[in-house]
């Protein structure tokens, strides 16, 4: 379930305007919303690394690693054929496993390829036991494109995390006021549990935009409190 952008917008406005702090225009909101979304999204990967070092629990719905994986899996694309190997064209945010499609005895098999830096590849190429082959493929990233190594590789499949779509609070100007237009709006793709976090992040960024240090401080303190609670 995604997070409705209008809900977030109304909450941000309600809190920001409560004490006549200032007005956030729709254009500013859209910019800040995308910034907040990417901020939260990027943090997932660092949090996952941190939580993987903790013991965790067996509940799934309350295990921090499982919760984070659930949030990330919304953006996870599995075993997608990559006809164009350029990572920008593929809208890859984080590249996962890369597979080579090879034909062995007439049957197509998918074999995971190992990522190599160019210097590593040179070393691995020099040994017959480690050199890439059809059944032992490797890949490098050249000019942001996947280059597969190993004779007889027919194609490439990839697992990756796609970039969250840019959000947009769509509106029409009626009588000088911006009214929400759901038809042109694009909601947040983040997990529904991120709604509060989004509001706080946008508020915090709004405090910077409207030069209200108090607003920034309140939102940042609330955000820090949440993070502390999550990571205890």
């Amino acid at each position, binding site marked *: 379930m995604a997070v409705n952008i209008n809900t977030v917008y109304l909450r941000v406005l309600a809190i920001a305007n409560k004490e006549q702090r200032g007005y956030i225009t729709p254009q500013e909101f859209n910019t800040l919303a995308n910034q907040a979304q990417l901020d939260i999204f990027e943090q997932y990967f660092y949090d996952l690394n941190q939580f*993987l070092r903790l013991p965790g629990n067996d509940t799934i719905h309350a295990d921090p690693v499982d919760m984070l994986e659930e949030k990330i899996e919304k953006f996870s694309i599995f075993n997608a054929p990559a006809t164009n190997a350029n990572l920008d064209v593929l809208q890859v945010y984080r590249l996962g496993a890369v597979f080579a499609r090879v034909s*062995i*005895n*007439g*049957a197509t098999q998918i*074999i*995971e*390829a*190992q990522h*190599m830096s160019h210097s590593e590849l040179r070393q*691995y190429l020099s*040994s017959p*036991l*480690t050199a*890439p082959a059809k*059944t*032992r493929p*490797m890949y490098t990233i050249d000019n942001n494109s996947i280059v597969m190594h190993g004779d007889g590789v027919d194609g490439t499949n990839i697992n990756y995390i796609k970039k969250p779509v840019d959000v947009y609070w769509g509106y029409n100007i009626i009588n000088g006021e911006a009214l929400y237009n759901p038809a042109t709006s694009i909601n947040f793709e983040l997990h529904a549990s991120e709604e509060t976090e989004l509001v706080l992040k946008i508020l915090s960024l709004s405090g910077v935009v409207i030069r209200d240090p108090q607003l920034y401080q309140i939102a940042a303190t609330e955000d820090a409190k949440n993070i502390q609670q999550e990571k205890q």
Partner: protein
Amino acid sequence: MALFKGTQQQYYDNSKTFTGNGSNKAFVLGFSPAPLLESDIDVFVNGTEVDNGDYVYASGTLTFDTAPASGALILVREINVDDQLGNYQYITLQDITNNFRVAYVGEGKIISKVKIPDINFHAQRAMQEFSYDTLKSEKSQEIELPPSLKMKLPHDYVNYVQFSWKDNAGVERIIYPVRKTSNPRAILQDGSYNYVFGDDNKLLTVEDSETWKAFKANSDNDNTVENVSGPDTDATLAEGRRYGLTPEHAQFNGLFFIDNSRGYAFFSSDLNGKVITIKYISDGLGTEDEMRVHKFAEEAIYKYIAHAILASKVNTPEYIVARFKRERRAAIRQAKLRLSNLKIEEINLVMKNKSKIIKH
């Protein structure tokens, strides 16, 4: 998921059966691996072979021009196919590395992270080491020995297990190595015994040394097994049982020696024209098809790879390395015991045979 792939009919008969319903034209064969070409299959409907102009085969799917009648029995048989017989006893190196990654590598496992080529490297090294002294030797070549009395060593030869020649009854008679001759590199000399050099200032040599020529020319063909009378085949095997003599010479099965630098095995002249078999050890990495391990040794391979990776990573606690070293040793020992294929009935017979000979 069951490990046996395909159907039993495919395994035993290389065929698959379908039943027509009067409308279905396309049938997915499901052969594993799939035949590559249309010429790799024969198609029969109700026992009558269908002309290959009446169907099309591509990418594992057979499509008839006209749908077979309802209830028609369609039989598709693969031809020119390598038999899969006996393959179930093996596991491929590819499967081993995949299984290893699942069971040993990852967050919270004994190896948190390792590159796939590193696993492949150690798996191949394990394959080599196991080929030398754990797995059973399955490689052999049989040739008719030419008058040159030389046999080329096999292309994937690492060491020999046994040379033998076939007698008239099809019994393999072991040929023993001779230690007191060889084919040394013979330097070409002129009439004044000076060395002769070539245009590139290198010493010239001749292919056959005088030593080898003399050994080759020795034709004591009277003392062959065919000349021994008597019904006792076991006695004529003559495995060095003439007491009081050097065992390697107290037999008449013939002799051989190997010249590793030239890549030839040389035989004594009494083996001229005989059918010679070499059973030998390779390293198991010659072709992709032979990169497979008997399932009796599967666990030993996992332990070998795990130990090799752990031992070569920095910061691995020494007690972990030691633990896997012990586990590897135990698993290899278990694999050797299993692969030695000891059957109590066979041991029983061997022991009875031994006691009989001692009574003589």
